[in-house]
């Protein structure tokens, strides 16, 4: 393996980028550059998707129609979800993967650098295409991100463009996944066994397999929608003998694993941060790997819990209810192991650790409400209410997004060579945590009381909780500007970071200087697991 990284001194390309300016970013094949592109793109999309959320919350501040018409409201709901899932959170984790996986496994770069460039550059075009549907006759799809027929087939001229955008996003994800698997399997330093790999790398390896298994299913589903619309097929059109519910099965066969595609890299980041600030090894390293693999496996056999109300045989309801509840076991293993890692640790509470602990509490709240709706009988009451909105936002915002923010604070000094402003970081943490709960916690109550999701108007008894939710969302959105300022300040220059950055964290990434040289590992490094004693 040591022969894999060529001695390329003759090329003089080991000292820095070949191109400068815009060409550097357009043509780059360096994993750190591409990681940065993903992360910056994701930050921009956070504000694009966030703006759509603000339109939704402004409209819902009080009952009645205030600012937008119902059709535009539903377009906002659809695009907010698609932008946040495919444009923000997935690219954020792809950015972390690009930056950190080669550093963590001692690889010289990603195995397929040009494919890597292409994976990224498809994204901006796809998202611009998706956003442009807003300006087409009939507007953007208003069916929600699930794109259920027959509603989605009523989209105007934008329909094929939206489908093409989804295809592009899927292709980008599949190529990134292939690259990650091939890199981990072929460029890992020979002294690091698979089971010794850091949990972040494991999280991404499993995620990449999930992506390859389910993104083509989404692509197949939306292609069939396209054919129903333009080629007179009847896959999902009841009038021609098709079955609209079949699309729901196909969508959720993709959609449920997609949830884990988002959360497994988040689990990986949390598993890096908690040991670093507990000054202890991760409790149950192998158990954590098996837990992630179990969650990934189970994600394929639970999809119909999203559609208990479509009408299915009792045996089907029982199967999907019980298989869904099984997921609580490996998830519980993870939550208990993170807690056990902190137990009797020498804890310190820098910003990444604060976000990680908030993740632990708040993701678990989202997990518990997930268990509630896994039960088929009560799910008939929760279905399509704001309770669902509260649940998945708890899992995705203080869950996945907090993990991404934690990872950003954790590795920012490694990337930039400067420490971020800890005081501002802590203020950002407290504002985010207070506002995220103010936004999403009241939604449980209005949901249980019967407020449906995806509506621009509601009954007056839901007013107070909705007003709280809207105030919280604006506060949360504004607090993220502080994150941008912290990053900007850190990049511009601040106190120099050491190579280790934190108090002796474990991993190959901490053995290279901060900022990481343009080419980190000329030769495969030797990985020696730390002896923690005791």
């Amino acid at each position, binding site marked *: 393996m040591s*022969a*894999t*990284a*060529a001695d*390329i001194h003759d*090329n*003089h*390309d*080991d000292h820095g*980028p*070949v*191109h400068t300016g815009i060409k*550097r970013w357009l*043509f*780059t*094949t*360096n*994993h750190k*550059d591409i990681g940065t592109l993903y992360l910056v793109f994701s930050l921009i999309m956070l504000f694009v998707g966030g703006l759509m959320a603000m339109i939704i919350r402004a409209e819902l501040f009080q009952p009645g129609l205030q600012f937008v018409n119902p059709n535009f409201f539903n377009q906002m709901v659809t695009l907010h979800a698609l932008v946040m899932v495919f444009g923000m959170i997935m690219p954020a984790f792809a950015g972390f993967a690009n930056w950190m996986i080669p550093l963590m496994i001692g690889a*010289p*770069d*990603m*195995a*397929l*650098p040009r*494919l*890597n460039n292409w994976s990224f550059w498809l994204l901006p075009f796809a998202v611009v295409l998706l956003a442009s549907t807003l300006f087409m006759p009939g507007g953007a799809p208003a069916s929600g991100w699930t794109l259920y027929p027959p509603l989605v087939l009523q989209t105007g001229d934008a329909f094929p463009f939206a489908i093409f955008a989804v295809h592009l996003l899927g292709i980008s994800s*599949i190529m990134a*996944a*292939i*690259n990650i*698997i*091939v890199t981990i*399997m*072929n*460029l890992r330093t020979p002294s690091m066994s698979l089971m010794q790999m850091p949990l972040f790398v494991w999280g991404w390896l499993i995620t990449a397999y999930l992506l*390859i*298994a*389910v*993104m*083509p*299913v989404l*692509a*197949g*589903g939306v*292609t*069939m929608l396209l054919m129903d619309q333009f080629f007179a097929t009847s*896959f999902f059109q009841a009038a021609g003998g098709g*079955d609209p519910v*079949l699309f729901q099965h*196909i969508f959720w066969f993709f959609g449920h694993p997609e949830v884990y595609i988002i959360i497994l890299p988040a689990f990986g980041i949390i598993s890096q941060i908690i040991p670093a600030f507990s000054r202890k090894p991760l409790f149950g390293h192998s158990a954590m790997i098996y837990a992630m693999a179990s969650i990934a496996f189970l994600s394929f056999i639970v999809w119909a819990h999203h559609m208990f109300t479509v009408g299915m045989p009792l045996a089907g309801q029982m199967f999907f209810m019980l298989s869904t509840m099984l997921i609580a076991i490996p998830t519980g293993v993870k939550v208990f192991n993170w807690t056990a890692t902190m137990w009797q640790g020498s804890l310190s509470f820098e910003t990444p650790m604060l976000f990680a602990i908030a993740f632990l509490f708040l993701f678990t709240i989202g997990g518990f409400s997930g268990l509630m709706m896994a039960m088929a009988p009560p799910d008939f009451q929760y279905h399509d209410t704001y309770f669902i909105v509260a649940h998945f936002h708890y899992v995705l915002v203080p869950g996945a997004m907090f993990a991404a923010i934690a990872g950003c604070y954790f590795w920012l000094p490694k990337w930039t060579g400067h420490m971020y402003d800890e005081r501002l970081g802590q203020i950002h943490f407290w504002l985010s945590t207070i506002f995220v709960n103010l936004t999403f916690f009241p939604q449980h109550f209005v949901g249980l009381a019967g407020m449906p999701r995806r509506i621009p108007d509601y009954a007056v008894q839901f007013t107070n909780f909705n007003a709280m939710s809207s105030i919280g969302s604006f506060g949360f959105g504004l607090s993220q500007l502080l994150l941008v300022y912290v990053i900007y300040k850190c990049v511009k220059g601040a106190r120099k970071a050491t190579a280790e950055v934190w108090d002796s964290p474990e991993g190959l990434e901490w053995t290279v200087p901060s900022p990481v040289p*343009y*080419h980190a590992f000329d030769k495969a490094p030797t990985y020696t697991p730390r002896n923690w004693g005791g």
Partner: protein
Amino acid sequence: MGTQSKVIDDNKLQRKIRMNALLLGFVAFGFFIAFVVATALKV
């Protein structure tokens, strides 16, 4: 012209990487076709 990523000069490894990537690509494409065909046939 140089590249901005590290060059892997081990031909055998390069070939293995490309074969791995191709295989995974075919698997993904296979899933795509399989799901469309299965839906068409209402399996």
